[in-house]
């Protein structure tokens, strides 16, 4: 077995973004629409407690709860933490305190940010009030943050509220972005490195002797590490294929085209790639193909017929 030293570790930025569209139930809809209208709503539990922010089910009894009440936009900090280095997406981009605030009339606390000059200006028990965002859309960020407030409660107790507003918000878009630096690991790095030399390498399982392309570092059949690097191809055999008739967004390949599984010579697993250089309706199982690189390409653009006679079915039937 030849164990090959690891080539330089590959890294690439990977950005995952997702704008989840979420629908709201009646309680959440009323709460978020209320914020748009500068009205803070809570929900009353069976035992008479007022939850702010409101939820649809009692966290203790799991009973459905719907009785909305209006609470004040003033409240008391129940605990806090000083955040001297705000991170992307957080409510304020200057140092601020994270706070849990029990609004006047509520029995539970809401998480948000408190705009304060420094940690010495913050303490549990301090009085605060909502600072509304200039533009409000029906989201928790309609509360821009809290700010210190020395006055009385803006309103005493709670008042029943129908939760009815004109043009209620029925959903939110929860946008999220996470940034990663992707590193593909030893086996896949070797594969990608070899491709840049226009070579295709796999790895052989020490136990079952199968050659995996692309290699992932393990034999999924035997559950052991694969370490013996094997050059395969460049030619191969089409084991199966499909004809694509629908044009993908942002793809400049004309339809119809053929996407195929190709067993490279020496490999025990077929990889998939596009077939070109032959009319789409003439592609067939057993067709012998070779890779075509475009100038500067880091992987084969497509595979084309070699002109050899078709492979005998028995030579690739295990790989179909």
């Amino acid at each position, binding site marked *: 077995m030849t164990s090959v030293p690891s080539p330089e*570790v590959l*890294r690439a930025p*990977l950005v*995952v973004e997702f704008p989840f569209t979420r629908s709201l139930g009646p309680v*959440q809809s009323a709460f*978020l629409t209320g914020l748009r209208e500068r009205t803070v709503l809570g929900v009353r539990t069976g035992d008479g407690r007022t*939850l702010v*922010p409101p*939820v649809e089910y009692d*966290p*203790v009894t799991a009973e459905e709860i719907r009785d909305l009440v209006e609470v004040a936009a003033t409240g008391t900090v*129940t*605990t806090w*933490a*000083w*955040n*001297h280095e705000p*991170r*992307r*997406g*957080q*409510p304020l981009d200057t140092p601020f305190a*994270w706070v*849990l*605030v029990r609004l006047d009339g509520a029995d*539970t*606390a*809401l*998480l948000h*940010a408190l705009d304060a000059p420094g*940690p010495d200006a913050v303490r*549990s028990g301090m009085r605060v009030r909502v600072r509304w965002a200039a533009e409000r859309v029906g*989201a*928790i*960020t309609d509360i821009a943050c809290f700010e210190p407030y020395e006055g009385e409660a803006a309103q005493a107790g709670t008042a029943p509220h129908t939760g009815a507003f004109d043009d209620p918000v029925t959903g*939110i878009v*929860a946008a*999220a972005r*996470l*940034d*990663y*630096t*992707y*590193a*593909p*690991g*030893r*086996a*896949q*790095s070797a594969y990608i490195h070899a491709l840049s030399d226009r070579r295709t390498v796999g790895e052989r399982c020490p136990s079952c002797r199968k050659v995996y392309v692309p290699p*992932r*570092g*393990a*034999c*999924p*059949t*035997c*559950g*052991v*590490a694969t370490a013996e690097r094997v050059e395969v191809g460049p030619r191969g055999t089409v084991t199966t294929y499909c004809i694509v008739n629908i044009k993908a967004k942002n793809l400049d390949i004309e339809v119809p085209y053929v996407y195929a599984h190709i067993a490279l010579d020496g490999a025990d697993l077929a990889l998939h790639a596009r077939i070109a250089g032959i009319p789409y309706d003439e592609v067939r199982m057993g067709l012998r193909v070779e890779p075509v690189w475009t100038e500067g390409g880091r992987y084969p653009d497509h595979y084309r017929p070699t002109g050899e006679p078709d492979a005998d079915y028995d030579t690739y039937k295990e790989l179909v």
Partner: protein
Amino acid sequence: MAPHERRQVAVVAFGQSDHLRTTDELSEVEMLMPVLHEVLAATGLKTSDIGFTCSGSSDYLAGRAFSFTMALDGVGAWPPISESHVEMDGAWALYEAWVKLQTGEADTALVYSYGKSSPGSVRDVLTRQLDPYYVAPLWPDSVALAALQAQALIDAGETDEPALAGVASRSRTAAAANPHAQLKGPVAQGEYAVRPLRTGDCPPVGDGAAAVILAAGERARELCERPAWIRGIDHRIEAHGLGVRDLTDSPSTRLAAERAGVFERPVDTAELHAPFTSQEVVLRKALSLADDVAVNPSGGALAANPMMAAGLIRIGEAAARIHRGDSDRAVAHATSGPCLQQNLVAVLEGETRV
């Protein structure tokens, strides 16, 4: 199910990787495989001998959908195996495997979990597990939420900054004897990360993996000289709204411990999954730990906190102490979610030595 109706199930092998800040040169499965092979070698089992396989990991750490399927290559997922996955810490995968063994459908189980935090920013990634309507849009990171809990404890007079520093120091000093730990020996408390928590109050961010093998009844005795019998195991959850909870207490841990039988007799060892120093204060109270209990002799999550594996490692470390004869009755705890939201508690015992 009453205890006498249960099958007796034990941890018979435990393995973990060296936990490192980065492991760029390894894919998840490449990081995991030596650990899998370690527990298989310890028991003499082959992957094909295993009755049930269960794993824990998270797509959000990997930045990729169905990322656990890649790791399955490491366990020989052919011919079709009886396999499951939890998008959580491996301690919950162990719970699922324990239930599977209770059904009698398997006599052995392989449980593994892994996480690479290095490719992304774990503080940002973990915000995605929060309530998506009211909380996640504010991007409160994991350290900030732990700091709110720490301040609540300080306000309640249950701890102070010097006491928290003491937890950090004791944990990392203990980790000096742990060859797998990421932070070993004294570490400066450092600057505030999010006040009142300093960098020393926070866990290291890193990559790692762990695996255990469970076996039922006589099979456990065949595979291990001194099996770590799981006498009880239970997990409970708190309300997801942080402002609904009393952050200075952990009723879910206490209830899980009660159901697992922790309070029936004293324990000599506690492996607690407390990534932040302040969380140890909460857990000690919830578990009513006596002063003479060895708490986190491995260094705990303050010494190495590979996401999705650190809870399973607590069970593994407790079991390994029983295997070695350093403990007779241990409690292991795992947590998931912000501010100890979800808690799993297991009681492990070794048979009386003659």
